[in-house]
């Protein structure tokens, strides 16, 4: 199954939910959805064969003022699908980082949502156990993976001096 064929199938599966679908480097498919529909989309994707969350990526676009949450889904059971990773992406505003949890659809997202919570301060509503997992609470307060958390030491040697 080529990536274009998979995109067609995802399109027919998600219908209007998929706002935009992009293929990156032939094996990574990014599906843009709305925050409101994320649970329905996840349910449909799981039925389709993407049975676990490969990883949950949050990207901070500080200048544009939003977080992009990407659930990268993979498949263990379906050989054809397992070649691809499908990223279900949606944006949430930076000043109100609250979204819904997918814990009850994908158990594999459990610790990853906790990671996103501690590193970006994103609250996943409905997650049963939303605590920091890697960081200690005082460090998690700083929300270290946000772009406005600046690493003090700048190890760069080759930088243009202003």
């Amino acid at each position, binding site marked *: 199954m080529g990536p274009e064929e998979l995109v067609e199938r995802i399109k027919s599966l998600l219908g209007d939910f998929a706002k935009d679908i992009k293929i990156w*480097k032939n*094996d990574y498919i990014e599906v843009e959805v709305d925050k409101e529909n994320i649970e329905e989309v996840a349910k449909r994707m799981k039925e389709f064969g993407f049975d676990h969350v490969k990883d949950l*990526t949050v990207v901070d676009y500080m200048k544009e003022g939003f977080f992009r949450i990407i659930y990268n889904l993979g498949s*263990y059971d379906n050989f054809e699908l*397992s070649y691809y990773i499908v990223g279900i992406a949606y944006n949430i505003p930076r000043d109100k980082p609250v979204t819904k949890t997918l814990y009850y659809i994908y158990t*594999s997202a459990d610790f990853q949502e906790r990671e996103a919570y501690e590193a970006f301060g994103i609250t996943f509503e409905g997650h049963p156990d939303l605590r920091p997992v*890697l960081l200690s609470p005082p460090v998690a307060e700083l929300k270290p*993976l946000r772009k406005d958390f600046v690493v003090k030491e700048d190890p760069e040697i*080759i930088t243009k001096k202003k």
Partner: protein
Amino acid sequence: MSGIIRTQGAQVGFNDLKLPGMWSRKIGKDLYEIFIGPQHPGSGHMRIVIRIDGDVIVEADPDMGYVHRTMEKLSEVRTWIKGIPLFERMAIHDACNVTLPYVRAVEKLMDIEAPERAKYLRVLLCEINRIAAFLYGFGIFGVFLGHSTMYMWPFGDREVWVELAEWLTGARLTHSYPVFGGVRRDVPAGFTDALRKAIRYMRKRLEDYRKIFVDNPVIRARLEDVGVIPKNLAIELGITGPNLRASGVKYDVRLNHPYEVYDQLDFEIPVFQEGDAYARVWQRVEEIKQSLNILEQVADWLDKHPRTPILHDKFWKTAPPLYKKIFEETGRAKLGAVYAIMKVPAGKAYERAETARGEISYYVESNGGNKPYRIRIHSASARNALVYKYIVPGHRVMDLPAIYGSIDYFPPEADR
């Protein structure tokens, strides 16, 4: 919470039971809370908070992060090339496997591909690393079950593979071997013969392991039907690597999403159906056998093909004549200055690889600068950490080391 002890506003402990000189906290009727780790001999650099009712664990809460090294954040403030030595600190004895997907993701963004010889060399080191990492896991597993011989033997035999890796790359553990567009060194003269000798030796030793450890009645009693991960649960939790395959799922990144030259090599993916700790031991033994087969094929290929450049032209053409002379004489490819100032075209790439402990994935996003915009790593041990929360409850306290050892959890890799 009446009995909270506070020092300067920070909550440091509870004193619900009013015991003299010690903190105490009520957690439930007839429950006993034990902290396994991080200074406990049966834990790695992690803590598992278990609550036991009698001898049975009713709740387990893995508390990771004791060796968290902020790799995702650090990578955002360092140039692209510095990511390689940074990320291999996740699993130093599995360095090639854990950095390879990063290198490949950046290569994908730059639309380049390593020369074929470099691909074979990467596979060579990956499999050497894989065997060494399995042996390391076996050693830890052995000592968790009180089997000191199984602790010493694999650690001794691992030395063979570590020395081979040192001969190939110049470093015992953190090799920094794969770089963008190729690898750093070609095989030294006589390497393939030593490799074949090591393969023969390892096959013999696996038989010894079987006799003293895998078929040992005490070990079998400890491992059979312990820590069973059913197939559907393994998929649901996203367990990975040998643990997933021991539960009956035929999934291996080398097969499902072939990278480098794995699609040209002849190997099998062993699968066990039982899903218990004992199946996971056999799974690893079988995987070592498959890795030995792969190494044999790589050695044959390297013998047949003469030395050709091991770096992509994009980087190699800028190399000064002195570097090319050194490469011709010794097989070492010195990295040009172009690596320090390289920029990666904007875009996103997702790349994964099969490490010894399972699948590692990198999401790499570039905005066209000389540093990554965002790198998200999710490593094999981080996926497997869910086992503690969902599989361990219901087992006895003495099963915890058996399960811990059998899923081959490696805290630095999980904490990133």
